């Protein structure tokens, strides 16, 4: 599970085998550690996701096919792992595909659905909202 080409399916499969909460956290933290960090110059207010108690940045980039690829970072390890998970879920999709993703369903399979409420401090809700807003704007552009 330490290859550079971890897929969402790998994550879902692995999570099923991890019974302990600390093993699951370690796995998420590891996902974050393998995420290439953003340059300090990229961590600007424009890319900051509001509503996260730790700092989170998401930078969208669009390729020639119109697919969106996000890069992201956080100053907290667990949250950075959640950022990595979001990128696995949403990256290299068209805006329409992004809007069709059932984020709640996926997070339920990971046992993380309870983190997907606006009141949660981890900011998962705000990240999903930001990604969907960007996709929505791209879809209607």
């Amino acid at each position, binding site marked *: 599970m330490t290859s550079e080409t971890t897929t969402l399916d790998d994550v879902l499969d692995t999570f099923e085998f991890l019974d302990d909460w*600390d093993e699951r*956290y370690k796995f998420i933290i590891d996902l974050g550690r393998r995420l290439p960090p953003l340059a300090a110059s990229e961590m600007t207010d424009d890319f900051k996701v509001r509503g996260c*108690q730790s700092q989170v940045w998401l930078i969208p980039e669009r390729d020639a096919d119109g697919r969106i690829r996000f890069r992201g970072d956080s*100053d907290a*390890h*667990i949250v950075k792992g959640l950022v990595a998970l979001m990128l696995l879920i949403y990256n290299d999709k068209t805006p329409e595909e992004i809007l069709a993703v059932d984020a709640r369903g996926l997070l339920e399979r990971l046992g993380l659905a309870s983190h997907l409420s606006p009141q949660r401090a981890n900011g998962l809700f705000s990240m999903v909202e930001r990604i969907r807003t960007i996709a929505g704007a791209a879809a209607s552009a």
Partner: protein
Amino acid sequence: MTAPVANLIPFDVEAVRAEFPILKETVHGKPLAFLDTAASAQKPRAVIEAEKDLYEHYYANIHRGVYKFSQDATEAYENSRVAIARFINAAKPLECLFVRGATEGINLVAQTWGRVNIKAGDEILLTEMEHHSNIVPWQILAEEKGAVVKAVPIHDDGSLDMDAYRAMLGSGRVKILGAAHISNSIGTQNPVKEMIRLAHDAGAVVLIDGCQAAPHLKIDVQDLDADFYAFSAHKMYGPTGIGVIYGKERLLDAMPPWQGGGDMIKTVTFAGTTFNDLPYKFEAGTPHIAGGIAFKPAIEFIERIGHDAIHAHEADLLEYATRQLGSLNSVRLIGTAPEKGALVSFVMDMAHPHDIGTILDRQGIAVRAGHHCAQPVMDRFGIPGTVRASFGVYTTRDEIDRLVAGLNKVMDIFG
């Protein structure tokens, strides 16, 4: 007055804990270790019962009705004010204004006393360790008036730089000092009596944010000679949504009212209105009746345990936690002033405070992680935030042991 004999006072923490129903709860399958009392304290049964008793047996609006329930509720509400005045040794109950909490109390002073007393060029002096609630109301006022907000710096151990304080008072332009009695973020206990004396010598008025002190220390506003003293019930084992701003009668009398509405008036015509006497001049609208009434059993709870016993218990916990956390190489304590309230704030290089708080939560340990609404003090130490474990009457050494074990888990996961 006899000298405190703290170490001779029997203190049965298990008996105290038995009064707090919530402490029997489990979190993620683990017994709750509640180490976030500085944010808000849990409630003893007497407080919970007082609200229930009101709503089930004699609830009505207060200060209005001629019928029995209204009179009973009014009497209970005003008895609470009397108990609060006694608790802080105010000269008169009317000097204790009910507000939503310390934040509203500070805003009230900034918007009323400040409105008529602060002019362009005046200085509002704060300290670098203030909670945002004791910064932002003054910034709003300063913006309106063209006044200047300045902050007294703190030393590396988190104690106030008293030399700098004296020098800043020397400008001759300081109109008010706003200072925490005990810092919520790093625990420093300020020498407020001395600070107030120096401020008065310089012609300034003083507001003390007593949120973190009122649950832990014997407060005597007359001995301190504080002009204003703010505190919140919910940090004192009392209900949420109610607090008190104490003000000297002479100052409160001269201040214009803040919010208009019912209760704060004597007569109203479209030609004009005459305002009610203290404290009602500042208490517009139907107040938090249940909160006011249930504040009294919280105060009686603290008085029954006794300040000396509380202080001895919490000083032991602080000393124990400081020693235990100090033995962990990867933990760096933030705020090590000689005089401290019952909390420890710390950082670990290997993980963000939120990471640490999340891993502790999984183990049933509730701590605060973040900037604690005191960003300037975090900037002062060059950190994004801290983990804060704070203690109260019901905290045990065993819970501190669990915190240490929890931090070992953090090291296992992030190290």
